[in-house]
């Protein structure tokens, strides 16, 4: 018993104190995976904000876009051309989704649209495997001039190992967030998006075509997915197993709220760091592998105290 208590309340902090370099490393790893979760969550948020659709397919869009990129390159297309073409593919996908799924299902209850994106998920899984085969692909990091190798920074007598690709991921993520922030707050489209977010009727009355908005957000989400796919693909490789990890974006959404871009980012950080710290310092107590559910429990506990998330709008019930 005392041993357990020690393991829970004392030992981890002793470890943090005695090996601060590992603590820093853990935080760094947490931040990096947090960034990737955040990127996936960002895709969710964009679409949810503008079309109220809980897009379950975001995860598979990550895999699909990355597969397309690598697949095109494998068939002898220069990397950057492939990249451009993949972006084009995501645009086509956005149009298709708007045309085939959203438009016929407009004004349906959320859960129906949610299910529709499930259908989309199945469809993309099948299509991806049909075209590119089920075998995992190696991300074409070099052709894309993504940095490889790592920085090794001595700290606290130990060292901090930073993969260059992870640093790149962090930078690219922040750039994308910045870009999206500008898109949302500075441009006409952005105002339109927010109008739609507030109320579809309002948007229409301002004379904005919903269809355009949807295409735009789905395209944006597609690009975000591509970026995520490239980053994660470069860390391990591009395979359909990635799709499962995409679920980790859900607790991020809970923390950040479904409609807040900064929420997605900060939520991602909290989840990423939280689960890494949890696994690293408390995992061994429970026989490890708690990373698979720890994030959800963090989110769950958090929910009980703040049902609307970090930045989500306050819910006021009225009659």
């Amino acid at each position: 018993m005392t041993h357990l208590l020690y393991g829970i309340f004392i030992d981890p902090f002793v470890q943090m104190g005695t090996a601060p370099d590992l603590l820093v490393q853990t935080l760094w790893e947490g931040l990096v995976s947090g960034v990737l979760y955040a990127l996936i969550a960002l895709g969710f948020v964009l679409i949810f904000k503008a079309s109220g659709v809980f897009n379950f397919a975001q995860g598979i869009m990550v895999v699909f876009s990355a597969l397309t990129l690598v697949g095109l390159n494998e068939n002898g297309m220069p990397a950057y051309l492939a990249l451009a073409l993949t972006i084009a593919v995501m645009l086509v996908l956005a149009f298709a989704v708007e045309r085939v799924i959203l438009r016929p299902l407009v004004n349906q209850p959320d859960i129906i649209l949610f299910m529709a994106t499930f259908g989309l998920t199945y469809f993309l899984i099948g299509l991806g495997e049909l075209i590119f085969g089920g075998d995992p692909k190696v991300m074409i990091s070099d052709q894309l001039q993504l940095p490889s190798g790592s920085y090794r920074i001595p700290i606290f007598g130990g060292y901090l190992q930073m993969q260059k690709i992870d640093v790149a991921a962090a930078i690219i993520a922040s750039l994308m967030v910045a870009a999206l922030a500008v898109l949302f707050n500075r441009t006409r489209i952005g105002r339109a998006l927010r109008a739609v977010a507030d109320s579809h009727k309002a948007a229409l009355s301002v004379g904005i075509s919903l269809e355009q908005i949807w295409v735009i957000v789905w395209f944006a989400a597609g690009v975000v997915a591509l970026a995520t796919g490239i980053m994660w693909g470069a860390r391990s490789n591009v395979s359909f197993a990635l799709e499962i990890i995409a679920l980790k974006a859900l607790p991020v959404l809970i923390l950040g709220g479904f409609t807040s871009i900064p929420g997605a980012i900060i939520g991602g950080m909290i989840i990423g760091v939280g689960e890494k710290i949890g696994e690293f310092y408390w995992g061994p107590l429970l026989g490890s592998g708690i990373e698979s559910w720890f994030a959800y429990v963090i989110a769950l506990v958090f929910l009980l105290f703040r049902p609307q998330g970090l930045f989500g709008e306050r819910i006021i019930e009225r009659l």
Partner: protein
Amino acid sequence: MLYREVGQYKTSYGADQALFPILQDRIGITVILLLAFVGVPLTASSFTLDSILIPVLVLSLAATGLNLLTGFTGLLSLGTGGFMGVGAFACYKLTTFFPNVNIIVLILCSGFFAAAVGTVFGLPSLRIKGFYLAVATLAAQFFLSWCFIRIPWLYNYNVSASIEVPTKTLFGVPVTGPTASPVTRYLIVLSIVALLTLVAANLVRGRIGRTWMAVRDMDLAAELIGIRLYQTKLLAFAVSSFYCGVAGAMMVFLWLGNAESESFNINQSFLILFMVIIGGLGSLLGSFLGAALIWGLPIVLRAAPAFFGLSIQSATAEQASFVIVGALIIFFLIVEPHGLARLWQIGKQKLRVWPFPY
């Protein structure tokens, strides 16, 4: 003109509130039950039983469970797989503790363990709604499947970390384990499913069902009418999880004969959710139709090429079936967002006025 209730007058509220007020429906259900209990066992091949009928029935029960929660009470849950797992492992432990108790009793009892766990994970529903709740139930899903592997006691410390179904007999006839004939297992599954479906039907047409639906349609108004939200929601979670638990137990003991943590992973939860929504939220019939479609479709698709004499790589067929299932889900949602059950209603409506268009 065959199918119509004209001329069938209800002389008492009792008659009016019967499960099947219309004569043709009563006849229909009788025929179906006769076929299921007598016709099928006599004719069906072991493949049809083992790979189509038993799975569809088991999954239908799970879908019914989820439907009670999501369709009738309006609480979206993604933890179905986990709750099925609880039922399965509970049943396994029960068989080791009470080796001599009738296995069917144990299967039903294991539902209560699932109900208990489900209620605990239902507690957040008191504070949160909609997708937030859905994600919260994911915590249940992942935590449970982690428990199923990390707590060896649950699988009696088998090195394989999986549960093997022992052979249990009933009146000398083996009903579980490899020696049990598909027909026996099918009949037991069918009986349990039929029984529990009747129970579900009774619940949803009575007071409890109405309070559930009231909470679903407008929880605040329900509260002002005097319905206790907390109790109602938790009851829904308990009953729903009970059904899922029994389904899980049957899945292992009467269908697969073996299971490990992965058998109850997140995809299981999603699969059941498909069935409920494609079948029709808030419709018991829908749960069955949905299960039949979602489970049957890939099998048909896999068999189709060979049936038409084409030779297609099994992998390709699998991938194609993914594409088609995905497309069909979208297609169905567009054609009839209220699911197959509504289509059935429409079909009946047509039948009612047949041969006239209106």
